[in-house]
């Protein structure tokens, strides 16, 4: 550390100017948006912005009285948690097979799983819409759960596979000579050993599911299935325009838990985001 300071006070100053500038770029919109959540509506959409707010809890009252915010929250939690559970149930065995079994076309199958991640959601929007329409699952939280699970399955599989590849084979071989079967090995060796990877995968899948917008917009049409992400887009009061203070409050309700989850997995974040390709 000390050696960097030796490289000259001038570049140190420059470095801090750049870092502080970017930190302001990141933080100022967030802080400003937080204040929006505690302002009366008359102060938000104005010809000339008002920088020193008068505080009010209007938005909070409005949310509780006019909008079924509790059911948005419940829909988000149910759909997201359910999808993560489905993902883990399917992805852990799949990742085990991709990491450990030798079979023809293993690399190709792995890549096909990965390639679903590369497809734009809009490409499958039309078929998915009719698929769920015919199953009578439009405007249902269960449909959202299935969709989120499908979107994140490839990601979860690849992250867990990457962590499983890191586990030394010797550990497994020792158990095998003791007569352990594949399921015992998976359950008693692999899962405990790659638990950080599984948690990372679950957190990242949860974040993507909370954020999902396009499919939710198509599937949900009432508060029966609206999640937080899409409910935001519906906070418009007709002639009054967009209700920004309510939007700000709801977005911070979602932001807080995500921030906590991400700080928990910080060390694994870059590996998770690149699906295991970067071991940072």
């Amino acid at each position, binding site marked *: *550390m000390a050696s960097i300071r030796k*490289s000259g006070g001038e570049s140190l100053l420059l*470095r801090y100017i*750049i*870092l502080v500038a*970017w*930190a302001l*770029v*990141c933080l100022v*919109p*967030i802080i400003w*948006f937080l204040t929006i959540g505690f302002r009366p509506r008359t102060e*938000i*959409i*104005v*010809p*000339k*912005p008002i920088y020193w707010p008068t505080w009010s809890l209007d938005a909070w009252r409005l949310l509780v009285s006019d909008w079924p915010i509790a059911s948005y929250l419940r829909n988000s939690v149910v759909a997201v948690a359910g999808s993560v559970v489905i993902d883990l149930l399917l992805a852990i065995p799949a990742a085990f097979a991709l990491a450990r079994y030798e079979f023809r076309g293993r690399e190709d199958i792995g*890549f096909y799983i*990965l*390639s679903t991640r*590369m*497809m*734009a*959601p*809009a*490409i*499958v*929007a*039309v*078929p998915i*819409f*009719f*698929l769920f*329409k015919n199953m009578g699952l439009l405007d249902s939280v269960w449909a959202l759960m299935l969709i989120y699970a499908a979107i994140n399955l490839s990601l979860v599989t690849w992250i867990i596979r990457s962590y499983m590849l890191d586990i030394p084979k010797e550990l497994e071989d020792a158990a095998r000579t003791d007569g352990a079967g594949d399921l015992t090995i998976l359950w008693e060796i692999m899962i405990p050993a790659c638990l950080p990877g599984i948690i990372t995968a679950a957190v990242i899948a949860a*974040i993507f599911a*909370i*954020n999902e*917008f*396009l499919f939710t917009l*198509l599937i949900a049409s009432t508060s029966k299935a609206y999640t937080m992400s*899409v409910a935001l*887009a519906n906070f418009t009061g007709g002639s009054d325009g*967009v209700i*920004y203070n309510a*939007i*700000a409050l*709801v*977005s911070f309700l*979602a932001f807080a838990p995500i*921030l906590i989850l991400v700080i928990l997995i*910080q060390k694994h974040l*870059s*590996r998770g*985001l*690149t*699906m295991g*390709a*970067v071991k*940072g």
Partner: protein
Amino acid sequence: MYQSLFVVKFVNWSWIGLGNYTRIIVDREFWAALGNTAIIGGISLALQSVIAMAVAFFCYRDPFVRGWRIVFLMPMLFMPSAVAFIWKLAFNDGRVISDVLMSIGVVSNNVDWLSSIWLARLTLIVADVWQWTPFLFIIFVGALQGQDEEIEEAARLDGASWSSIFWNISLPMMRPIIVVAVTLRGIDITTMFTNVYIMTQGTPGGATETMSFFIYRQGFRMFNFGYASAASVLMLILTIVIAQTVVRRAFKSGKS
């Protein structure tokens, strides 16, 4: 492909063979959407790569790097729909950006950001860069922190400047990681939908309509499901080509 044929059956459309495809090939809106996606996505991808790399390089040996990481990560943790509203408010409804620009004397009047092609695109680029630079940053800074400190130290003792350390040591070492990270980000940018839906709805005159929004508008606003499916299939073919060539190579080199 298979499912897109299904759709035709579900809504009892008369079979028109490749009619949708021949129509779409000459549809100027389709090509415009493709071009917009490339322009908006390309510019934001370039900007966020450069910013993320610069910020990562300036803070990876900083004593407060853990703090910087959390601060720089924050924009990414907002729901994309919320981010779109932040910038919609800042640019259009709240006129904050115009006001700030006026007070430092850049412009003399309120700017109507949706009135010109490039200003409208700029708002989308700003929103995307703000939210997703952290994605690249967190990967780059992790890679830089994993870099061998002794090599850096040796180079510095030999009198190498920070810029030559960056160009000759860090950048070559990070190449495979940069390829993977930028490829992933590039894929996500081409799917841009939320910001367009909330901020511009494709205005003015379709200049900000991305491929995803084009498919959505054709399918779910104008109910041309067959047409939207045809556009989806074309986009799918494009994606498969890109996935097979670029991404496969990126992930192979990332592993080694």
